[in-house]
């Protein structure tokens, strides 16, 4: 579920910017790092740190939009690629200098231990991740599908030039989308940072998973990103449990290649003829 949040943030930024934000994976790491620091300072559990981490990473998203995306909006997408890669490098090096390269543990959401339901022990952390992730996915769906802000965000994603021509303040919606993407990345960083730790070099791995989720789900499709990420999680868990961890990544890439050969637009992507 945490990977679903990473992929959803990735696709929100992609749709708003019209180009890949290569710093998105590092925003996830930054969220984990913010949780580590805030946890050390306050001693609070992760659940209470969530709003703070979300706010900090929303601000980082706004900063990314202001310095690496909006100023390059009229340039070819490659300019945004390079700018966001530079931003990713700055975040990674900044974290290495300030926190060191050794991994740190983010605080758990609800403390250690397990629930017991009908004789089955369920770890608090995995359950909390599923609950928080589900609530956030539901909130994002409501925003995009049931509010005027969401409709306009989708209109901007569909055709930025036309969105301006009907009076939508596109720059404001790009900033809002990047703030939301940062928020989701930050929360995902906090959720992942307890189980998988937080290290400055993890950004590329998060980025790759999100990229794969969006590619197999359908480039630009929010639903596709969600299902792609959940599919990756289930696939890796299944393969790990049946043939071992070592095969999980290799099998994932083979499956991704097979999907993209059979359906190049991804599972929920729009074929060219579908565009109005």
């Amino acid at each position: 579920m945490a990977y679903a949040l990473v992929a959803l943030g990735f696709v929100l930024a992609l749709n708003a910017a019209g180009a890949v934000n290569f710093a998105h994976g590092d925003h996830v790491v930054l969220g984990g790092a913010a949780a580590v620091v805030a946890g050390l300072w306050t001693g609070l559990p992760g659940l209470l740190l969530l709003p703070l981490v979300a706010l900090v990473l929303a601000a980082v998203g706004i900063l990314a939009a202001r310095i690496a995306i909006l100023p390059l909006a009229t340039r070819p997408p490659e300019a945004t690629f390079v700018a966001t890669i530079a931003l990713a490098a700055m975040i990674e090096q900044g974290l290495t200098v300030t926190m060191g390269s050794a991994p740190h543990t983010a605080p758990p959401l609800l403390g250690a231990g397990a629930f017991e339901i009908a004789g089955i022990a369920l770890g608090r952390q995995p359950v909390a991740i599923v609950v928080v992730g589900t609530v956030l996915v539901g909130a994002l769906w409501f925003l995009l599908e049931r509010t005027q802000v969401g409709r306009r965000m989708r209109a901007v994603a569909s055709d930025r030039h036309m969105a301006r021509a009907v009076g939508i303040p596109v720059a404001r919606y790009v900033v809002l989308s990047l703030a939301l993407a940062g928020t989701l990345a930050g929360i995902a960083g906090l959720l992942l940072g307890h189980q998988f730790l937080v290290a400055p070099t993890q950004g590329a791995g998060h980025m790759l998973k999100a990229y794969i989720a969006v590619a197999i789900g359908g480039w630009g499709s929010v639903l596709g990103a969600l299902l792609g990420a959940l599919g990756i999680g289930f696939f890796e868990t299944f393969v790990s449990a049946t043939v071992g961890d070592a095969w999980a990544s290799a099998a994932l890439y083979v499956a991704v290649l097979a999907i993209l050969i059979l359906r190049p637009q991804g599972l929920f992507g729009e074929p060219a003829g579908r565009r109005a």
Partner: protein
Amino acid sequence: MTAAVLQLGEIVLAAGEIVALLGGNGAGKTTTFETILGFQDAGQPVLLFGQDVKNWTVERRVRAGIGYVPEGRRVFAGLTVRENLEAASSLARSARQRRLDEMFALFPQLGERPYARAWLLSGGQQQMLALARALMDRPRLLLLDEPTLGLAPLAVADLLGRLRPLAADGTAILVGEQRAGLVLDVAHRAVVLSRGRIVRSGTVAEVAADPALADLMAGG
């Protein structure tokens, strides 16, 4: 005297007036529309509703009262019919809902399929959606760039038949066309462009009678 709704060089529109902007491919029709909207630098004053809007953003010009139907329709493909109309409106929620009902009454073919994704509509329906989208916030100036392109004759007649009633309500309409014969029946005046310059302007009768424009007139 009331101020012109639009003044861009020799292109002047008063409220309730329909002006045909004629010219072949590359004549400068789309550039003219994009200049009025603010996507391109005018290089000369653009007066909208009596004000010089040279330093206004595209969004500000549109909110001041421009509705735009671009060439190729460009509806928001993944959004439903209803969402296309709502997304383009800056009205408050209750006013927006009332306006939606008015649009669905004016365009029954859209009212029958409010939850259909825009990419599923026929070309004619998409053109109606693009027009309804432009009308959502009751624009004082309506810009239509080649609105008949790719439409069946019945859809063309339906579309053009809607312009006179809109103008009668006070909307100024600038309609770009290559096939002059299609729009001169509904226009009050015409401006002819060639290679980015105005080569002729006048009443419909004057322009239609110009022998130098016979090829343009034969279109449609």
